[in-house]
């Protein structure tokens, strides 16, 4: 299982954290990449709600939540919490369902190392060595 990159966004689209393990394709502009990622996810959420067969096309009930998508080169896993914090993980295409892993990352790494940090300002990007190493450890133990 190869892990490529990891993003955390808040509800407003601010990228709170970005971590990469392997990214062979060079990113031309980092800010553009974050914005494109958030824009893609935002639009995918709306798209999925419209296309949901269990709710009428006209009611935006928001029952349907987008979980993951796969392309020929990578698979993107997505988890959004009611707090508005969304976690995005890009892995190789053959990976299975990583929702439990993302929930684990949110509850152990993010809540413990970031939210409980008294100096953390919500809505601001953060750099936390503890979070980065907790995430790396979670990735290694999950592999």
């Amino acid at each position, binding site marked *: 299982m190869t892990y490529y990159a990891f993003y955390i966004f808040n509800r407003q689209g601010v990228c709170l954290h970005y971590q990469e393990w392997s990214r062979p394709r060079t990113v031309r502009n980092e800010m553009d990449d974050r914005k494109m990622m958030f824009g893609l996810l935002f639009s995918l959420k709306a798209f999925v709600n419209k296309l949901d067969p269990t709710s009428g096309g006209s009611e935006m009930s928001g029952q349907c939540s987008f979980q993951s998508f796969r392309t020929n*080169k990578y698979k993107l896993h997505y988890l959004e919490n009611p707090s508005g914090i969304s976690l995005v993980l890009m892995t190789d295409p053959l990976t299975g369902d990583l929702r439990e892993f993302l929930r684990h990352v949110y509850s152990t790494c993010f809540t413990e190392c970031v939210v409980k940090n008294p100096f953390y300002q919500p809505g601001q990007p953060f750099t936390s060595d503890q979070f980065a190493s907790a995430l790396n450890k979670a990735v290694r133990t999950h592999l």
Partner: protein
Amino acid sequence: MSIFSLYIVNKSGGLIFQKDFADIARLNTNDALMQASIWHSLHAISSQISPLNGCTGIEMLETSTFSLHCFQALTGTKFFVTCAPRTTGVESLLRTIYEMYSDYVLKNPFYEMEMPIRCAAFDLQLVVAIKGMA
């Protein structure tokens, strides 16, 4: 029947065919046109944010209530179906639909490229193929 609907999008992003196979909430024509074009753009963006080179776009999308499988032909025409989660055999169904598209639509001398598909034979064969999957 676990296949909900089929959409065919031409290479410019316009919807050229849409059919529902199950008794589900139907999108009205305008919404269907909009969603198909939105899908065309999302498909393109997904290959731009790829961490690796050579990404051709979203092939499968999973949500809590449905899955979406997409096949993009080399010409840029996209075929996508919405189905129940964890449905199997959808990839081969998409290939079959592509074959039927090339047989009943493209070989129809009255069909104009990139225009909406109005071929009775194509519709019939589609229903047979979808029923065969169930």
